[in-house]
């Protein structure tokens, strides 16, 4: 259908996670979708969580606060302190979670080419341990899902593994 989609996730270093994704839309539109609450609420929310609270001052030196609510009613709060704001090209913020330790320096760039926008998000954590802990915490919220996937994997695994 179009030359977009397919997210690439890599770990350029022990402390980083990098995501690259192409969207079939002009940069200003994608930038808005990343920085306006009424738009963020339409798509942002990991593991079946939805964005129940979105507030902040989206501008240089500003901040934001999100609360995501899961299907079971559990909530997770996170906040960002905006360090750099160059609309619609580049955003830098420091992200923290209410319930988890550590913080991440998040750099998001928006590059437009022939009407398509490449978004690159780099999350830099203070240490490998913190990066892994944050990812792990996120995974706990989707634990049931993880175990389902694990079960699927194990169901398909070789008989020697299944017997063990």
């Amino acid at each position: 259908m179009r030359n977009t989609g397919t997210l690439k996730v890599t770990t350029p270093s022990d402390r980083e996670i990098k995501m690259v994704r192409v969207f079939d839309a002009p940069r200003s539109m994608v930038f808005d979708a990343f920085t306006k609450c009424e738009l963020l609420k339409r798509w942002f929310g990991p593991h079946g969580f939805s964005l129940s609270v979105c507030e902040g001052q989206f501008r240089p030196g500003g901040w934001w606060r999100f609360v995501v609510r899961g299907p079971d009613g559990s909530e997770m709060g996170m906040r960002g302190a905006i360090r750099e704001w160059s609309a619609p090209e580049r955003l830098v913020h420091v992200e923290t979670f209410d319930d988890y330790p550590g913080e991440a320096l998040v750099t998001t760039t928006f590059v437009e080419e022939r009407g398509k926008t490449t978004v690159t998000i780099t999350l830099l954590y203070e240490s490998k341990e913190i990066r892994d802990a944050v990812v792990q915490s996120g995974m706990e919220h989707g634990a049931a899902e993880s175990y389902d996937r694990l079960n699927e994997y194990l169901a398909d695994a070789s008989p020697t593994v299944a017997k063990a």
Partner: protein
Amino acid sequence: MNLASPHLDAAFAALADPTRRAIVARLALGEATVMELAQPFDMSQPAISKHLKVLENAGLISRGRDAQRRPCRLEPQVLADASGWLDHYRDVWERNFRRLDALLEEMKGEAKKKSTPRRSPKKD
């Protein structure tokens, strides 16, 4: 992450058993003693201990030093590797971004609608 590591083989083998998966799921909520673990499973403590030994050898759990209680806790890293956290992370975000794709399509449609009558007012 190295999917070919012997450590992961041991982890997958350990997790092939439904009781051990249930133990891991219980420990995901927090550490527990053998007695606490044995209760919901309706199993004897020695039977549970055997399962714990397998999980411990696979590096999936560790046990406290307190000689009396020896609480078990999950070693998240191995489990994360075992379930391929990077793939999982990617899946989660890709699902988000597909919703964003749909939203952007809608936004493009609306932008067109708004600009069309202005550019060709005679159409209305």
